[in-house]
């Protein structure tokens, strides 16, 4: 199909879509006017029932905990899919770049970048841990914290060279954290069954509202999700970096 024909086709489809979208959006309650009764109920009840102050966390990990279980598995499946997609192909091999001029040392990263990486990575790790543990109190939680923790590792990649990081090979650790995080969610869900309730029931002691340790399984699920997301996003980065740094066409 030529570009012009495609554009014409798109114009017709987009016009139809715009009309449908417009009709659909016009049927929504006017912007900022009211909340659904479901939302009002949860805003009222979440704090007294689950002893948390961040209602979004209570919804994500408790009231709609099953949704989040599948969401976590979507993430796990995507990370596994990317690992499979970016594996060395039949005509490729994994080897670190060969040093053709051993007498000339590779210049290390500039001291400014190195210093920034040291500061930023520790700061990011700290913020990540803060976000993960305060998920029941303030905005944040496992998903956000996992991404922040993974970016601490990205900064380490930036401040050293890739070969140095590759020598430490955190791959096994990262994969383990990804898997343990995903499995941990199921295990915490099974606690409910062990206590004679339904799957993912909040059976752990709820603690005192406003304390760091509160919310029962919500805080625990935040931890395992943080572990999974941190591992998953770190694996993503290393898979993509492997493509440029380690995986190369096999020599004939």
């Amino acid at each position: 199909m030529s570009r012009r024909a495609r554009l014409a086709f798109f114009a017709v489809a987009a016009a139809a879509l715009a009309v449908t979208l417009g009709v659909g959006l016009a049927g929504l309650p006017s912007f900022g006017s009211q909340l659904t009764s479901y939302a009002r109920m949860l805003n009222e009840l979440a704090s007294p029932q689950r002893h948390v102050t961040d209602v979004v966390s209570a919804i994500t990990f408790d009231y709609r905990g099953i949704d989040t279980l599948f969401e976590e598995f979507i993430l796990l499946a995507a990370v596994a899919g990317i690992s499979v997609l970016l594996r060395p192909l039949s005509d490729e091999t994994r080897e670190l770049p060969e040093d053709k001029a051993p007498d000339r040392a590779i210049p290390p990263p500039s001291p400014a970048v190195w210093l920034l990486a040291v500061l930023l990575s520790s700061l990011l790790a700290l913020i990540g841990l803060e976000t993960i543990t305060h998920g029941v109190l303030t905005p944040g939680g496992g998903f956000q914290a996992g991404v922040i923790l993974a970016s601490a590792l990205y900064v380490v990649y930036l401040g050293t060279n890739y070969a140095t990081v590759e020598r430490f090979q955190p791959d096994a650790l990262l994969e383990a954290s990804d898997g343990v995080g995903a499995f941990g969610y199921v295990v915490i869900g099974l606690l409910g069954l062990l206590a004679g309730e339904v799957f993912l029931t909040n059976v752990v002691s709820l603690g005192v509202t406003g304390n760091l340790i509160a919310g029962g399984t919500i805080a625990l699920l935040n931890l395992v999700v943080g572990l999974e997301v941190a591992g998953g996003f770190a694996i993503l980065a290393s898979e993509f970096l492997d493509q440029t740094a380690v995986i190369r066409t096999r020599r004939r």
Partner: protein
Amino acid sequence: MSVLAYGVVAWLFLVGIYGVVTSRNLIHMVVCVSVAQSATDVLLLEIGYRTGGHAPVFVSLPAHPGPAVDAVMQALALTDVVVGATVTALLLALAVQVHKRAGTLDPDALRATKE
């Protein structure tokens, strides 16, 4: 106000799809998909918004009087962001392999489907 708020959603979605249709580079196309996808984030947050509302975090309430916005929609937006990130990552991985096999990122130049 409603027209502007919901108009942004329709605009974001359509402009993202337009980018996908006219794209000449697969990386650019992945970015366009995430633009279209961000329309759903905006829509979810807008449905949950309440004029003068504060975040659904019930700490130091006296400083933030008034109603809270819809926490359910914020939780759904979180799901949406996570799924969007995984879709982007998967599509980028596909783009990497397409570039290796075909030597180009221009979707119009890909001929493998024709043979």
